């Protein structure tokens, strides 16, 4: 009990705990759609792309950081989906170039103008130092937005994730629904970047969703389980990171990985069957058949 209460005496830990827990839940929630659409590669690329905008804003216009980096992220997200949708050969390469170039720009900006050392590591692997109240508020706002989008567009999102062609033929504006999802994804990555870290955000999009997939065959339940798993990973990972003295993102991801192994062991063959190929059709999803 003592070990749980003691760190709460520090204001920075309180904020970190709130942000880590909420971030885990948000990424677990959004990750279900990303994993089932085979878009985890895009999630990975997007977090790197956003880092460029994040670095530029942090260094030069910190007060506008959410706005600037948010627009940067949404622009990257829409660029990536457009490239991926067109399904041309080389879409993967284009995404790779755009996102890694943006990441490299962020690294360059940080090395040139940033405070050397810790700040850079924190951005990559997550940190709870210097979390402001406004960051918490933004995180809550994005969570509310993501929840509202899923509530109001639940069936469209499900249908377009499962079967985009039939959804389109049934009168759903698939491109619009996908753009909306990419905006939610970009904003979710942006507000969790601080505490999880650029290089680890994609893992938290994937791990809770895959764990949830192993535990259920129902989409609705998968959404709920993945959110709870993400939340618990954030909470437990945060405490462990405090005691182990390692960056928050790394511990949160490690907790997720351990949870994955445990569930993998418990659910046995059935779980393996469920999760096999869960993130199969990554990259461009061109349905070309004559």
């Amino acid at each position, binding site marked *: 009990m003592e070990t749980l209460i003691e760190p709460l005496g520090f204001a920075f830990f309180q904020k970190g705990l709130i942000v880590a827990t909420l971030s885990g839940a948000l990424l677990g929630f959004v990750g279900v759609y990303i994993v*089932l659409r085979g878009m985890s590669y895009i999630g990975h690329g997007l977090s790197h792309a956003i880092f460029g905008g994040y670095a530029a804003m942090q260094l030069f216009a910190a007060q506008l950081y959410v706005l600037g980096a948010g627009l940067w992220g949404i622009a990257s997200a829409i660029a990536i989906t457009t490239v991926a949708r067109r399904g*041309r050969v080389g879409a993967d390469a284009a995404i790779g170039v755009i996102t890694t170039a943006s990441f490299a720009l962020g690294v360059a900006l940080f090395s040139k103008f940033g405070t050397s050392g810790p700040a850079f590591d924190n951005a990559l692997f997550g940190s709870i130092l210097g979390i402001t109240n406004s960051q918490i508020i933004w995180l809550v706002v994005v969570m509310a937005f993501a929840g509202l989008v*899923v*509530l*109001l567009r*639940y*069936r*469209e999102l*499900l*249908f377009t*994730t*499962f*079967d985009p*062609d*039939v*959804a*389109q*033929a*049934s*009168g*759903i504006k698939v491109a619009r629904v996908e753009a909306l999802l990419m905006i939610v994804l970009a904003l979710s990555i942006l507000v969790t970047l601080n505490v999880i870290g650029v290089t680890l955000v994609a893992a938290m999009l994937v791990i809770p969703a895959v764990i949830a*997939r192993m535990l*259920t*065959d*129902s*989409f*609705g339940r*998968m959404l709920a389980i993945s959110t709870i798993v993400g939340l618990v990973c954030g909470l437990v990972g945060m405490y462990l990171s405090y005691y182990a003295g390692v960056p928050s993102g790394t511990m949160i991801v490690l907790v997720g990985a351990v949870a994955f192994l445990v569930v993998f062991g418990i659910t046995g063959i059935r779980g393996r069957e*469920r999760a*096999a*190929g*869960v993130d*199969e*059709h990554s990259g461009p999803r*061109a*349905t*070309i*058949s*004559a």
Partner: protein
Amino acid sequence: MSQPGLIDLASVSAGYGRTTVLHDVTLSIDASAFTGIVGPSGAGKTTLLRVLLGLIKPSSGTRTTASGLRVAYVPQLETVDWKFPVTVFECVLMARTEHRFWPWPSAQERTAVAAVLERLGIADLADRHIRELSGGQQQRMFLARALLREPQVLLLDEPTSGVDINTRHDVLHLLGDLHADGMGIVLTTHDLNGMATHLPHLVCVNGHIIAEGSPRDVIVPRVLEETFGARLEVLEHLGMPIVVDTSHPMREPI
């Protein structure tokens, strides 16, 4: 020009990127349609279906639809992600795309899904995961989802590939019933004897429309050779044409 149909294609060419798969297709689908699109693999059958559905925009020519047109689409079973976490009930319910504030189904929707599952004889499978179904049951589930939309036109891509003979029979019967109720039906098939000859109207396609008409009119050696690029003989059995491939005679076992 005859009466406008529910979906009309006028001199439509279409394809993917720079490749044109279909050339100069003119076709009208109305509520009385019960049409099979026939052709070899790569002939543009699915492309034609996708143009009719509006999933591919014509690179030239025009597609016009009746206002307020309701179509339903049954995709090929092979194109579906069967590992996706949905139950049969959840999958069928997707057809209800009308706006509803809450994600969960209304009592009316539950009744409607139950009724359509009952009609297709898979009511007891509602809570199963889609992977646990047989090919025939999967096809029925997609038919249920399509029917829940109460469409004017139902389009199906190879509805009898990958299902057994009994299911093929059932699917044909069901489509016949729906057609009798006034629903337009369009399907693609490469199965001449099992499917095409049982339909009242056929469109033979290979890059363009080669012939259109009743099986008696189009299941003839000249059209078949142009469509399939192979010499096929046509016999008649109980008044139905039967196609025999004579270009590849069966070999004696060695």
